[in-house]
């Protein structure tokens, strides 16, 4: 089978603290992969390592069989990996539309000189970008808020916009960090459908961090559980739900539906 992302024994230390210790896993192309674990287990840190925001202390990371551990964040993005943030990071003072349009930039390659000259290349590529942005905004259901300042959108729409912005890059791998945080169960269910839908539509692989078990169990093909920076378990939702150490460290005994 085709593994799009291979994480081989990565470690990240902050001073004396091992935030991620010797973790390895592989993500299958086209799948939805869940990353769960107690607070402070190192989930966000793994995203930060994959996207190049932190440098790994030890180990190896391969994306489509290319090393990505020494890349700058923007280079990682150029490879086709992008993400959303646990605490939303939009371009707050720009409009919804500008947020998306900006993120489309890599789908064109007119130069600074082209833009100054306003030549043909600029014009065709720019109108192409605008078309892409329009389309994406419609898909994300943000068309009627497109001229709103991103920072003024309600929380749920901000999350949606952040996902939209990530999609604008036409990524192959999308990392979602707690996309349902702050959403009520109803909204969470909508989000679940949205994730599935964009996976199919854009032919994506998705890695998602969540504490909402409904969402994780509902959409993931494979789940990795972290605890204290180390791998605790890996398997299908069913396997995970039945794994006693996971139940003990993370899920708790009672019913988990919220």
């Amino acid at each position, binding site marked *: 089978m085709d593994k799009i992302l291979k994480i081989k024994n990565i470690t990240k230390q902050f001073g004396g603290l091992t935030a991620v210790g010797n973790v390895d896993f592989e993500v299958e192309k086209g799948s939805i992969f869940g990353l769960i674990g107690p607070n402070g287990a190192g989930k966000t840190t793994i995203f930060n390592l994959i996207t190049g925001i932190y440098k790994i202390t030890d180990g190896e990371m391969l994306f489509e069989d290319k090393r990505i551990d020494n890349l700058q964040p923007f280079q990682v993005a150029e490879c086709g990996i992008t993400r959303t943030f646990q605490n939303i990071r939009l371009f707050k003072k720009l409009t919804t539309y500008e947020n998306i349009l900006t993120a489309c930039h890599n789908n064109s390659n007119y130069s600074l000189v082209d833009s100054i000259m306003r030549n043909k290349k600029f014009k065709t590529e720019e109108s192409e970008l605008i078309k892409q942005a329009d389309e994406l905004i419609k898909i994300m259901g943000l068309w009627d808020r497109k001229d709103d300042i991103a920072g003024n959108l*309600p*929380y749920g729409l901000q999350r949606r916009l952040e996902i939209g912005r990530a999609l604008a890059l036409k990524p192959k791998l999308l990392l979602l960090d707690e996309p349902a945080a702050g959403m009520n169960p*109803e909204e969470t269910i909508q989000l679940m459908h949205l994730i599935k839908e964009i996976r199919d539509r854009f032919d994506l692989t998705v890695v998602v961090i969540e504490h909402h078990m409904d969402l994780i169990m509902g959409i993931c093909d494979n789940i990795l559980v972290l605890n204290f920076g180390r791998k605790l378990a890996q398997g299908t939702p069913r396997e995970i739900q039945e794994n006693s150490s996971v139940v003990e460290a993370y899920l708790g005994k009672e019913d988990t539906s*919220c």
Partner: protein
Amino acid sequence: MLKVENLNVYYGGIHALKGVDIEVSQGEIVSIIGSNGAGKSTLLNSISGIVKPREGTITYKGKEIPKLPHKIVKEGICQVPEGRHIFANLTVKENLLMGTYLRNDKEKIERDLEDVYNLFPRLKERITQMAGTLSGGEQQMLAMGRGLMSNPDIILLDEPSLGLAPLLIKTIFEIIEEIKKMNKTILLVEQNAYKALSIADKAYILEQGKIVKKGYAKDLINDDSIQEAYLGKKK
């Protein structure tokens, strides 16, 4: 004990709260439930004095609450704000001590500190870490711990379970019940409506700035329309 009457709040042109009335009695847990942007945080912020309502009154123990936020805290109303309003540049311990800013009972503070460490052992491991580098959930624990340290009469919790692991959410709700047992009053804002309703005495449903329903929590939890809208259960 706490009474909000005809509260109207505007952000520029946005009418965020439209004539909200709520009432909280001593020793109760009261939940506010509503979807994103309904105005829940705005309500708590108005009570804390951070947002100035255009109209309406808020009375506490029969008196109108003071104008300035820090005086409101002095009256014994403490908010654990939404998101992570912890002090990133202070250590974990200093953050907890900030909770005791208005207190002078040194020995009791020491004991309370121990209690908080017992509730959240993770914090104890990290007392000298800069709070800004904690994980999301750890920061949430810290915010909660800090709120407890201020030993208020009434505690306003804004989405305390946000971003917490399931096991921890359980703990948090247990803690909330603990707090109630200490005869404190709690006003709880939650997305996790099921959990919130199951521990609350009373609840209000807030929609687009208006209270659309109120009642005893155990009644609301069985209400069909509420089940559909907030509990994620299809009919």
